[in-house]
C-alpha cells in the first residue's frame, strides 16, 4: 500500500518542495518588511556549495546545513546594504545577486588543487527520525512520519513565522514597516533595523534551502543544481499571498510538479519536462489574474504596500 504511485508521489513532492519552502519562507519575511530580494536563486546556490563543502570537510550534516544558511546570509548582506542603506533599485540588485551567486558557487565548486567538489559525494545525509514501525504504517507512515528531521524543521518554521508575523508585536511592527515605512517611523520603529534583519532572514532561508537541496535531496554538487528552484520560490511568495501556510501547500504542489516528470515517464505518458517546469509560473500568472480581478480579494492577498520602495525619512 505504501508503494502506490500516489503515496510515492506525495513523499517525493514533500522532499522536492522542502528546499523551495525554506527559500520562500525567508523571502516572505524579507518582503513583509518591504524589501524585495530577487536573488534567491543566487543565495540558494551559494548556500548549496557552502553546505556541500562543509559537509565534505566535516562529515556532519547539521554543520553543513548551518554553513549553507550562513552562506545565504552573507550574500543577502550585499543586497541589504545596497537596497536599504544605499537605496539602490531592488530589482537590479536582486538580479545581480543571482549572477554573483551562480558565478561564485560554480567557481568554488570547480577550483582548488583538491579533487573538485563536482566529483565528490558528501557521504553525509539526514536519516528519518521515527522508528521503522511507525514509518511502515499505511499511508501516514511515509507521508507524515517518513521524513528526515529537516522536513519537520520546515514545518516548525512555517508555524513559527506565521505566529511571529500575525501574533507578536514585533511581527506587527515588521509588517508595518513593509506597508508604510513613514507611519512606522512616526510610531518610533527603526525601519532600517527591521529591514536589515528581515533581509538576512531571507538569506538564511534561501541558504538553508540550497544546502538541503544539495545534501538532503540531490546528494551531489553540480554547478547550477538549483535549476530554477530560486525563481519558483519567488513565484511562490506571490502565489501564497505572502502567507506561510499557503507557501507550504504551494511548495508541495510545485514539488509534485518537479517530481511529476518521472512519474509520468513511468506511466508511459510523454510530457516534455520543459513544459512541466513552466507550470509553477503559469500557475502564478493565473493566481495573479484571478486575484486582481476582484478588488476585495486583491486587497486581502496583496503584497506589502511599500514593497521594493526605498525609504528615506527626508524625502517626502
Amino acid at each position, binding site marked *: 500500500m505504501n508503494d502506490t504511485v500516489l503515496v510515492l508521489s506525495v513523499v517525493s513532492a514533500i522532499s522536492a518542495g522542502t528546499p523551495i519552502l525554506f527559500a520562500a519562507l525567508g523571502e516572505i519575511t524579507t518582503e513583509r518588511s518591504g524589501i524585495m530580494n530577487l536573488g534567491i536563486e543566487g543565495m540558494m546556490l551559494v548556500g548549496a556549495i557552502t553546505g556541500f563543502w562543509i559537509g565534505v570537510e566535516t562529515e556532519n550534516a547539521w554543520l553543513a546545513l548551518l554553513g549553507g544558511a550562513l552562506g545565504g546570509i552573507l550574500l543577502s548582506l550585499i543586497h541589504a546594504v545596497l537596497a536599504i542603506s544605499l537605496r539602490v533599485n531592488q530589482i537590479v540588485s536582486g538580479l545581480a545577486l543571482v549572477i554573483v551567486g551562480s558565478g561564485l558557487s560554480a567557481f568554488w565548486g570547480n577550483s582548488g588543487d583538491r579533487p573538485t567538489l563536482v566529483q565528490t559525494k558528501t557521504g553525509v545525509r539526514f536519516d528519518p527520525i521515527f522508528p521503522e514501525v511507525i514509518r511502515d504504517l499505511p499511508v501516514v507512515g511515509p507521508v507524515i512520519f517518513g521524513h528526515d528531521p529537516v522536513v519537520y524543521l520546515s514545518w516548525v518554521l512555517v508555524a513559527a513565522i506565521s505566529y511571529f508575523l500575525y501574533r507578536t508585536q514585533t511581527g506587527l511592527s515588521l509588517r508595518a514597516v513593509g506597508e508604510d515605512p513613514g507611519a*512606522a517611523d512616526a510610531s518610533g520603529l527603526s525601519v532600517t533595523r527591521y529591514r536589515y534583519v528581515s533581509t538576512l532572514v531571507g538569506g538564511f532561508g534561501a541558504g538553508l534551502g540550497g544546502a538541503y537541496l544539495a545534501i538532503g535531496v540531490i546528494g551531489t554538487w553540480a554547478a547550477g543544481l538549483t535549476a530554477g528552484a530560486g525563481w519558483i520560490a519567488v513565484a511562490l511568495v506571490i502565489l501564497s499571498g505572502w502567507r506561510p501556510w499557503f507557501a507550504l501547500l504551494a511548495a508541495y504542489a510545485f514539488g509534485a510538479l518537479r517530481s511529476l516528470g518521472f512519474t509520468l515517464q513511468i506511466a508511459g505518458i510523454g510530457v516534455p519536462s520543459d513544459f512541466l517546469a513552466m507550470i509553477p509560473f503559469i500557475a502564478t500568472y493565473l493566481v495573479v489574474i484571478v486575484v486582481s480581478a476582484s478588488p476585495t480579494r486583491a486587497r486581502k492577498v496583496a503584497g506589502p504596500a511599500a514593497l521594493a520602495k526605498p525609504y528615506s525619512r527626508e524625502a517626502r
Partner: protein
Amino acid sequence: MAATEKEILQVRELTKSFYGVAANDKVSFSLRNGEVHGLLGENGAGKSTLCSILAGLYRPDSGDVILNSERIRFRSPLDASNMGIGMVHQHFKLISSFTVAENMVLGLNAKSRNISLGTVEDEVRELARQYGLDVEPSAHVWQLSVGEQQRVEILRQLFRGARILILDEPTAVLAPQECDRLFEAVRHMVERDHSVILVSHKMDEILSNTDRVTVLVGGRNAGTLRTNETDAAELAKLMIGSDHLPKLANKSLRRFVESTPVLTIRDLEVIGDRGTEAVSGASLEVLSGQIVGVAGVAGNGQREFQQAIVGRRQISGGSIMLRGRDITQLSSRARSRSGLAYVPEDRLGTGLASGLTLEENLILKSYNEPPYSHRGVLSTAVITAAAEKLVKDFDIRGARSGMPVSLMSGGNLQKAILARELSRPHDLLLAASPTRGLDLAATASVRQHIRADTEKGGAVLLFSEDLGEIVELSDLILVLAGGRIVGSYTPATLDISELGLLMTGAKVHN
C-alpha cells in the same frame, strides 16, 4: 464646558525658521486645562509649524515649551506622545492593510509586547463608546471612510493616553454631518478634562466650537481672544492684518465695456476626489484684456475648478465656452490648441516633465507640429533656436544642455512654463498660484509677464491664495468658498474685511 483657568501648556517666544524664513516668529500662546483653543490663520501663517513643534516633529530654534510648569524639549513625536500630547495630522498616519486595533498597538513600548489584540479591541470599543467615536476595532482601515479613519487617529491618541489633542484642520476632509460628529466627540473630550487645540481657517467652526481663539498672522500671535467675546468681523480683521493690506494706490481702473468674452463658464459642477461636489454651480466670465482673480482658501474647489477648465477632470454639469465655442467635450490637448494656456500650481508635477531638459520642456505642447518636427522626426536645430529665443525673452537662467529641469530653481521653472504657454497662440491664460515660493525678483517678473499678456488682448483667469497678488493684478475679484462664487468686487468696490469674511465661509448679508 469644563475649561478652567489653570494653564496646562505654555509656549514662550517660540521661533522656527526654514531656510532663513521665520514660520514662527516669537509666538507665545497658552492652553488651559479642559479648553478647546482655536488656532486661526491663513495658509502660511504658521499654524502647522507651531503644532508640529508641540507634537515633537520639529525642534524650535529658540523659545520654550512648558508643560505642567516644566520646561520640556521633545526629540521625537514619541517623546511628545509619552508626555501626553497627541496630534491628528491632516494626512492620516495609519497603515491601511492593518485593522484598527493593530494600528492602535503599533509602536507601543516593548513592555506591552505580549499584548492581546482581543483585549485591545475591547479597550478601543470602550474608549469609542465613552467619547462617541464610533469605530469597529476589528475592521481594516482600508474599509473605513475618511471620517472613520479620522476617528481611529483620534482614538489612537486617546489610547496612548494623550491629555492634549492637536487637531490639524480636522474638517478639511469631512462631509458636513461628519463635522458635527467630530465636534460632538471634541465636547466629550473636554468633559473628560482633555485639552484640544483646533487648527482651522473656517470662521464658523472656530466661533461655534472653541473657548478661546488665537489668531496667527505671518508667524506671529496677532491676539488671543475669548470666543464668546468676539465675532467674525473682529477675527477676520486680525487675520488679514493691517500691514498685509495690499496697496491699492497706484491701481488704475480699466474698463472693459467694449471687450468680448473670452471664457464663459456657466453653472459649473465638478465632483471632487471624495465623491462630493467640489464645485457647485459656479459661473464666471473673463473678457479680453481682463484679469479675473479668484480669491479663496485652499481646498474650496480651486483645484477641481482648474482641472475642469483644462480638461483634466470630468464635469458633472454646466458648460465651459472659449471664445464662444463649447470646449466641454474636448480633450486637454484640443483645449490647449483652441487657445488655452495653463500655468498650473505644481510646477514639476503638472507644469513640466522633471526628467527632461529645458529645450524639451519648452516644446512639450508643440513638438508634434511644424516647424518643430516633420513626419515624426524632431528638427533639433529649430528647437534649439526657439529655445534660445525664449530663454532670452523670458530671462530663464540656470539651464545647461542635457540637464533635467528638476535641478533648476523655482523662479526659473515658472518662467519656463510661462515662456512655453505664452509663446503659443492663446486667448486665455489660466494661472494658479503663479508666484508661490518665488523670491521678490521672480515674483515681479512673473506678474509683469501676466500683465503684459493682457495688453495684447489676452484674458487671464488667476487663482491665488495670496490676497495681495489677487488685489494687485485683478480687474475683477471673485471669492470662491465651498465650491461657490460667493462674492465679486471691482477694485473700486473692494471691501477687504468683507472679502476676508467671505473667504472663511462666513455669511455676509447686505
